[in-house]
């Protein structure tokens, strides 16, 4: 009997060259953008093109930043992230499917406020390079759109003219650079 040992390489997120950004509608027609400042994560893969990548990311919910301290405090409150009781947002991939042309469909569990729901990231593997420090790096870009209410981020205010102040749909855009360990 032979045993096949799967050799997976491990890559760590370079936080200086990674952004977790989002945009959400304001007053129906306008838009606010923001990001999370503190996060960490790893990617493992056995294939050179990352087509079997497994991703594990932890984001500090209190690090949400929309360049507006009052709004950020509101976002950290129980109206949105409830950061005191739910200090982290996590994403753990469950499946990666190569779609050709370096495109990947990464399915995973997104946990916010203790609620776990499946999301699908539309990702692109952008290649590998050797950094000036001699480290092997790889880069990805990924997007998805989620409805914040599914995770219990419920707050809103009705507008006089109909509709609501804050959009329910949130567009996520991730630029990720990982360093081989």
């Amino acid at each position: 009997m032979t045993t096949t040992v799967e050799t997976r390489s491990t890559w760590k997120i370079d936080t200086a060259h990674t952004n977790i950004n989002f945009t959400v509608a304001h007053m129906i027609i306008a838009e606010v953008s923001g990001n999370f400042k503190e996060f960490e994560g790893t990617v493992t893969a056995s294939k050179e093109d990352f087509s079997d990548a497994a991703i594990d990311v932890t984001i500090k919910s209190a690090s949400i930043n929309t360049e507006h301290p009052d709004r950020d405090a509101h976002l950290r409150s129980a109206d949105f992230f409830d950061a005191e009781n739910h200090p982290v947002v996590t994403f753990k991939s469950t499946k990666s499917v190569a779609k050709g042309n370096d495109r990947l469909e990464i399915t995973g569990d997104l946990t916010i406020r203790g609620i776990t729901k499946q999301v699908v990231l539309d990702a692109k593997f952008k290649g590998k390079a050797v950094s000036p420090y001699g480290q092997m790096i790889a880069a990805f870009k990924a997007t998805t759109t989620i409805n914040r209410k599914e995770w219990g981020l419920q707050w809103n205010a009705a507008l006089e003219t109909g509709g609501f102040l804050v959009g329910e749909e949130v567009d996520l855009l991730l630029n990720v650079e990982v360093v081989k360990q």
Partner: protein
Amino acid sequence: MKKLFFVLLALSAMGTAQTKWGMDRAHSYVNFSVAHMMISDVTGTFNQFDTKVESAKDDFTDAKIIVAINAKSINTGNEMRDKHLRSADFFNTDTDSIVTFKSTKIEKLSETKYKIIGDLTMRGVTKSVTLDAAYKGKIKGYKGMIAAFKASTVINRKEWGLNWNSAIEAGGFLVGDTVEITIAIELIQNNNS
């Protein structure tokens, strides 16, 4: 911020039967992204900027738009990198701290798609750029009418003298030449107009 105010003041002399709009800073942003190591992207934003718009027509096709950005307020979430970006290698903010965009022509492609052509000045260099814009419409806000635009463009930073780079051993350069810019502005109609 004083300097931004004076740049924008220049607009007020333009017209009389114009509707004047200011900007809601809390619901507007100027973001950018640039390649790092050829393959990955760094994103950033400017924390201080302002916008003034004057328009006689309801659909903004005759609008005069000025956006003024404090280059010192560049923010990529990494203080050392931001300091480098403010230096003479990039924006040289000690001598040229204000970036301006002044519209020269607006083309309406459809109800929601516009091309906004204008002069972008950085480091004392002025060049014409074209923004692909989406006009998102008008709505009554808590303090009067608001209108919203989202626009994007791609520029080559070297055309404005933001020249710094470092060669990578494997070929290519550390920082990309092309910069993708995305702007979303929420305008508030001035009460006195």
